[in-house]
């Protein structure tokens, strides 16, 4: 506003100074001499300005005291020239297409010029991040960074996606990358960081890039760098974004009431007909099914008597039967167009000696499921100052408070609205009905009464009796209050002879205070008058390091060396308490509740101490060599084995700097590089796994008790990675085509495996470092400025990743079947070992599966037979969940001031086991919904179909098998963003330096091989019933003031 007023005043002054002015003319061209039309030409510090014509020329009358003209346009750098005494000023603009030599990469304990770097990394800048309207930065990276694969993270508000860098590095320990925020290992909440505050995300991939993080670097490192004030520029940026979210993956098609009743009748009838040893006639079975089907399903939504619903002769619905009521549970529990608001403001400035940035932000999103949502306030302050010519110091602080309203979205519990609404048979209403199908109204409130599926209402609903999530989720509470704060400070001292010293202290505080309240009126806790659990999880991470550095140039040689020490401490305090017996509804606090049901608290500590060093050497800025070393000691392991050494070596050759290359004009940059190194993965479950422990808290009444919790495991150690990387960076055709190609081989050894023990010894397994696997692959990143005209730009960015995951050493050649996997040498960690569906027996509708014929030695002979008993079927390998190729393509178009970008991500190959679909294809479980595919079931001898016979209570024919294994390939239009940049001249007239309005769609369209399936749900290709991902349509405006 102040700017606006100033502008207005300037305008008034301008009119008052008509007498003292002069006219300047000139031409604006790009670095190739082409005219730049529509460029803004403004007198610096005023709103006086104009725009260039089609030929790039301009004429501007300026006040006589004007000293400088500023020209700006899309795709070029701003340029200033002093007015001086002449009247002609020509401008040659420099394209903003980046010159590789200027790019600086964030690396452990510092930064390095990209051209001098021997490691593998990808940096994503704020420009790429800001077009996506997501709450956690982890959701933005998929499709932008080669070498990673990511889940979609589901749709629960305030959550992020999971990322894996260069394959899956572990089987039983974590494969999660290490996150580093502004130079310190970060254990806080990533979703608590404002996207607007993030300047760059640097994904470090090979040993040369990561090994300086030693025992924690094994799965790659993601460095988050926050924005800072820029020297010589004061900026006020405000963002307002309003979005609307709806589910991006459609629900499975499920059968309606009529089909449901007929099908259930058939399943009921078949249960009589196909029971072992049954002698009942078809007619008798038909009649019996007609007589009992309504009793079995309990609810009769028709206007005919229970035994008149299905015609026993045809198995069809009585033509006189009309449906009395029909409710859609998804309509009432899942909403579309849930609002999301994201606003933020940041103020930054910088002088020669100091810089400053502060920002405030708020994200408020309502989940696409009722009763869920996320509201987060963030604040940040970054300050740096060169206090004296030898002392620099700075402080950064950021904090977030967030409130997350959750619904229980995991697993098959009937409190999970996604599972519940999907699996609920269509005949069960949300609201209680009377015999005529009319709503039953509450006599006091007059409101419709919810049906809980209990005897006192419409009967015991066979699916999830005594529950109604619309009622209970509203009364229940599952919320999480999160506080997340980071404070970091450092002192940097310049010492003589090229030495420097930097010490930094970082602290991250995270606190989650969780309430889980089950209401006192209905559902799981009504019989105990409500149950509430309060749980707090408080985490404090501190990192304190001291780094001595030395930089020396002698002749053409450049040497940079650092040595340091670091101590890291993670402290976690967990406490929770549960009480029941609430006096009246409306409170979830424990004080009024009568009965203590349980409480506990404990503390965990994890410490790492490290010594490290690194040397980077460059000769003529052309021959590059690097080496790093880190010695880590971690409290996770036994004292005799807890110290380990990690290192890397790397080399690079900037061929383009060689004199013999200087004549090749189309080649701007070519560097080849290679690195090798070892790092570790110490993040296994539990902090004290080496110790033989008795677990406390096994109290018997009022007497304290303990049981043996673990066996001593002194040899236990981190997993180890040996990483080889060969890469090339290039820039061609005047930097219009830039790219990187990398080959990597990541060999992970000493992998933890549960070494099986005889369960009769009291323990069934112990962890041992016994396995190995490799992730070998290639990744390509290309950026091409296809068209670079004054009015029109088109840039394509493509990245592709292919990797192969192979188990190379296992405790035994083939591990026992565990879940849907049976690890074997040469197979991948996500290779399916499941039973093989052999179709349906046309004579009786049995589901058939393959079974090995065993020889006299009990081993498979190689011959197979068919069985109709799934439990007897044999397991076979059926491919894996790891895609052959993943990637992302970004197209960015600019026409004048309009910019349109579209990010498409895709995955080819890789299979997905759809457990949701499996649940919807049961053979006739009373009350449970059915996929419409069930309509194609086998019905009579001779039917040729892939859907077996219906039969209630038949438990041996349906389950995990290749019947539910599908191609997991997908193509996701992940983000489309259309923005309009206000012309500078217009912007400056209203007091802004820059303005942008935009609209975007995140998760616009997902193409999969089957409707309802969510193949990006997990890395291992398994489905779950949790929160589906959402599509967000956003409109927003960004205002920059200077």
């Amino acid at each position: 506003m102040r700017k606006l007023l100033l502008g207005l005043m300037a305008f008034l002054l301008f009119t008052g100074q008509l007498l003292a002015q002069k006219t300047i003319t000139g031409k604006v061209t790009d670095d190739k001499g082409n005219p730049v039309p529509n460029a803004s030409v403004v007198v610096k510090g005023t709103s006086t300005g104009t725009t260039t014509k089609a030929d790039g020329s301009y004429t501007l009358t300026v006040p006589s005291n004007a000293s400088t003209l500023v020209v700006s346009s899309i795709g070029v750098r701003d340029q200033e020239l002093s007015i001086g005494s002449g009247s002609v000023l020509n401008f040659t603009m420099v394209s903003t297409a980046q010159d590789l030599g200027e790019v600086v990469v964030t690396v452990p304990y510092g930064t390095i010029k990209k051209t001098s770097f021997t490691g593998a990394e990808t940096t994503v800048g704020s420009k790429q991040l800001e077009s996506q309207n997501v709450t956690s930065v982890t959701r933005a990276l998929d499709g932008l960074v080669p070498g990673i694969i990511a889940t979609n993270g589901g749709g629960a508000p305030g959550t992020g996606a999971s990322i894996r860098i260069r394959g899956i590095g572990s089987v039983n320990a974590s494969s999660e990358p290490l996150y580093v925020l502004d130079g310190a290992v970060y254990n806080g909440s990533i979703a608590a960081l404002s996207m607007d505050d993030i300047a760059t995300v640097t994904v470090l991939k090979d040993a040369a890039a990561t090994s300086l993080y030693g025992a924690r670097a094994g799965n790659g490192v993601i460095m988050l760098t926050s924005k800072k004030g820029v020297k010589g520029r004061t900026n006020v940026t405000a963002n307002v974004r309003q979005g609307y979210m709806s589910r991006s993956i459609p629900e499975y098609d499920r059968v309606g009431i009529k089909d449901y009743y007929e099908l259930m009748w058939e399943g009921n009838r078949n249960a009589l007909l196909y029971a072992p040893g049954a002698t009942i006639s078809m007619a008798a079975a038909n009649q019996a099914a007609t007589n009992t089907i309504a009793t079995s399903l309990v609810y009769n939504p028709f206007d005919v008597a229970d035994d008149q619903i299905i015609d026993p002769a045809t198995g069809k619905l009585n033509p006189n039967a009309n449906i009395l009521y029909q409710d859609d549970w998804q309509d009432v529990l899942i909403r579309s167009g849930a609002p999301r608001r994201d606003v933020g403001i940041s103020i930054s400035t910088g002088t020669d000696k100091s810089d400053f940035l502060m920002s405030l932000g708020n994200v408020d999103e309502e989940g696409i499921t009722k009763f869920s949502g996320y509201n987060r306030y963030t604040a940040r302050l970054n300050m740096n100052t060169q206090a004296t010519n030898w002392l620099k110091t700075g402080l950064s602080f950021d904090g977030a408070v967030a409130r997350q309203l959750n619904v229980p979205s995991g697993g098959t519990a009937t409190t999970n609205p996604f599972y519940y609404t999907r699996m609920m048979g269509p005949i069960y209403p949300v609201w209680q009905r009377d015999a005529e199908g009319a709503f039953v109204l509450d006599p006091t409130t007059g409101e419709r009464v919810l049906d809980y599926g209990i005897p006192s209402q419409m009967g015991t609903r066979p699916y999830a009796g005594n529950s109604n999530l619309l009622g209970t989720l509203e009364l229940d509470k599952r919320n999480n209050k999160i506080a997340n704060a980071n404070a970091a400070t450092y002192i940097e001292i310049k010492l003589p002879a090229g030495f420097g010293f930097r010490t930094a202290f970082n602290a991250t505080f995270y606190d989650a205070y969780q309430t889980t309240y089950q209401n006192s009126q209905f559902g799981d806790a009504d019989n105990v008058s409500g149950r509430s659990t309060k749980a707090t999880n408080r985490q404090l991470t501190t990192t304190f390091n001291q780094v001595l550095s030395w930089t020396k140039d002698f002749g053409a040689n450049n040497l940079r060396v650092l040595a340091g020490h670091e101590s890291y401490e993670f402290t976690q305090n967990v406490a929770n308490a549960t009480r029941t017996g609430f006096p009246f509804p409306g409170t979830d606090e424990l004080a009024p509740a009568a009965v203590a049901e349980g409480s506990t608290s404990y503390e965990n500590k994890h410490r790492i101490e490290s010594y490290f060093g690194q040397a980077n050497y460059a000769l003529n800025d052309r021959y590059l060599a690097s080496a790093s070393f880190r010695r880590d000691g971690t409290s996770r392991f036994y004292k005799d084995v807890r110290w380990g050494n990690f290192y890397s070596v790397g080399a690079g050759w900037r061929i383009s700097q060689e004199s013999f290359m200087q004549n090749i004009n189309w080649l701007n940059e070519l560097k080849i590089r290679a690195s090798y190194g070892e790092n570790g993965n110490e993040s296994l479950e539990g902090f004290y796994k080496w110790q033989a422990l008795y677990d406390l808290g096994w109290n018997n009444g009022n007497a304290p008790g303990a049981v043996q919790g673990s066996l001593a495991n002194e040899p236990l150690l981190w997993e180890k990675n040996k990483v080889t990387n060969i890469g090339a960076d290039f820039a061609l055709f005047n930097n219009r085509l830039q790219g990187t190609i990398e080959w990597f081989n990541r060999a992970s050894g000493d992998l933890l495996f549960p070494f099986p023990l005889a369960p009769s010894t009291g323990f069934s397994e112990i962890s041992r470092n016994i396995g190995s696997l490799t992730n070998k692959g290639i990744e390509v990143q290309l950026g091409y400025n296809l068209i670079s005209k004054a009015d029109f730009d088109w840039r394509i960015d493509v990245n592709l990743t292919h990797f192969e995951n192979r188990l190379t050493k296992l405790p035994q050649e083939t591990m026992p079947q565990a879940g849907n996997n049976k690890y074997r040498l040469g197979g991948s960690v996500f290779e399916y070992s499941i039973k093989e569906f052999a179709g349906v027996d046309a004579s009786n509708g049995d589901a058939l599966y393959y079974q090995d014929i065993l020889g006299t030695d009990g081993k498979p002979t190689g011959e197979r037979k068919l069985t109709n008993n799934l439990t007897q079927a044999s397991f076979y390998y059926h491919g894996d969940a790891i895609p052959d190729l993943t990637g992302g393509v970004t197209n960015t178009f600019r026409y004048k001031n309009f910019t349109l970008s579209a990010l498409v991500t895709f995955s080819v190959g890789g299979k997905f086991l759809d457990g949701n679909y499996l649940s919807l294809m049961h053979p006739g479980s009373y009350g449970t919904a059915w996929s419409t595919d069930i309509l194609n079931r086998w019905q009579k001898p001779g039917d040729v179909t892939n859907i077996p016979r219906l039969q209630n209570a038949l438990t041996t024919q349906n389950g995990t098998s290749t019947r539910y294994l599908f191609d997991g390939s997908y193509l996701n239009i992940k983000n489309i963003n259309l923005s309009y940049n206000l012309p500078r001249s217009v912007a400056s007239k209203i007091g802004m330096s820059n303005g942008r309005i935009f609209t975007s769609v995140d998760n616009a369209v997902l193409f999969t091989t089957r409707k309802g399936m969510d193949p990006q749900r997990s890395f291992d290709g398994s489905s779950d019933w949790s929160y589906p991902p959402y599509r967000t349509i956003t409109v927003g405006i960004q205002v920059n003031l200077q």
Partner: protein
Amino acid sequence: MKNMLYKLLSATMLILVLVGCKKDYLDTSPTDSVALETVFQTTDGGYVALNGLYRLQFTSYVDHGNFGQKSLDLTFDLMGNDMVVNLQGYGWFNTEYQYSAIQTNTAGSRSGLTWSYLYMVVNNANQIIANIDNASGAPDDRDNIKGQALATRAYAYYDLINAFQQTYKGNESKPGVPLYTEPTSEGKPRGTVQDVYTQIVADLDEAITLLTGKTRITKSHINANTAHGLRARVALTMEDWPKAATEAAAAYQGTTLMNGEEYNAADAFSSIGNSEWIWGFEVNTEQATIYASFFSHMDVATGGYASLGTQKKITKALYDQINDDDARKSGFRAPGTGTSAYPDYNQNKLRVPSPGSWAADYILMRAGEMYLIEAEALARQGGQDAAARTALETVIQARYPDYSAGSLTGAPLIDEILLQRRIELWGEGFGVLDIKRLKQPLNRPTGAGNHGAPNFNPRIYTLPVEDPQFLFRIPQPELSNNASMTDADQNP
């Protein structure tokens, strides 16, 4: 001056870099666990381990169908003739009732979890037995702790051998279950049934010696009476009739039988304070496992799974054999009075003391059973029928004062004792164990009020005597990872 400053600074930094952290910086330990050696330094610590051993037997683990001893007891009843499952409900214990859960050899099946659970009990008992002798404290406490651990080990082995093999008599040389008398990581072979019973008898006899004259701090601890009672069960199974009779009599010393009114009180079978109880687990609100608890699966008033379809009912066949004047008949819903939540024949015997609270103790042994063991053991000895009738009448008349065993002798007397045993101990975990012990076939009555539609489908109605389908399967991980066993050791 400036040089001085630099030197000072450099020196400070070097110190910072080189010194590092304190020596014990990396030694961390948990706050919710302690080292094994710490536990067994004193008898006080020994009691901590002992209490943990008991808690292990009534806590829930893995899922809502596993809550220690009572989930196994419920399985034994569901595999018998007298307990009917109303409807599929949430599916818990459906496949136990249908026998498929015990015929599956995976680690997570009822067979697998029974195996790992009971061996967890054995291992924790073995830790106590191996370490308690060196604990400082009063010798009486050491004996008390060790005696209870020995009896607990015997109790676990008794369940193991009964689940994974046919009864003792006639099968003495058949494969047993691996026998561990001290903590080890080395797997043991199956051995024989005789080996297992020999160890059980030795453990119980030693326990009785160690526990005699000691007082227990809570009824959830095993005392001499309890050890005698366990010994009586074992003797009955081994058909050592004189021993069974004397041990049973020793077990019920000092107890008072419930009268009819007390028998039907809400807390008769859920309150450890009951004077007829010899042993039980005291489950307070905090230690109750809520939905994953015995009463969740039994009592329709808890709002647990029993009220959500899997109501447990007595067969009409057995119900009709209870005299109308017998107070025990009120333990079941009279036909014609039922509702869908609380149907005809639904059990009302085993319920929580007060609905609204999950605090409900678990019954493990009571005097009624001991009188019935005594009666059966006397009747089977021959020539002791009068004493047998007295023992029988003592317990039944407490509930049903007009009861008389008349002048029954011989086989009819034994049959009467066994009938009364089925009525008296319905739902307390003896169902299939008695069928196996008595070498009877599985014979589930059908027709209205009995097994089969409209009740939940039991899948199996009859099984011949000592059919292999009675046997739990040894979990595959045991066969694969126990060096002393192979796949050939699996039950037929």
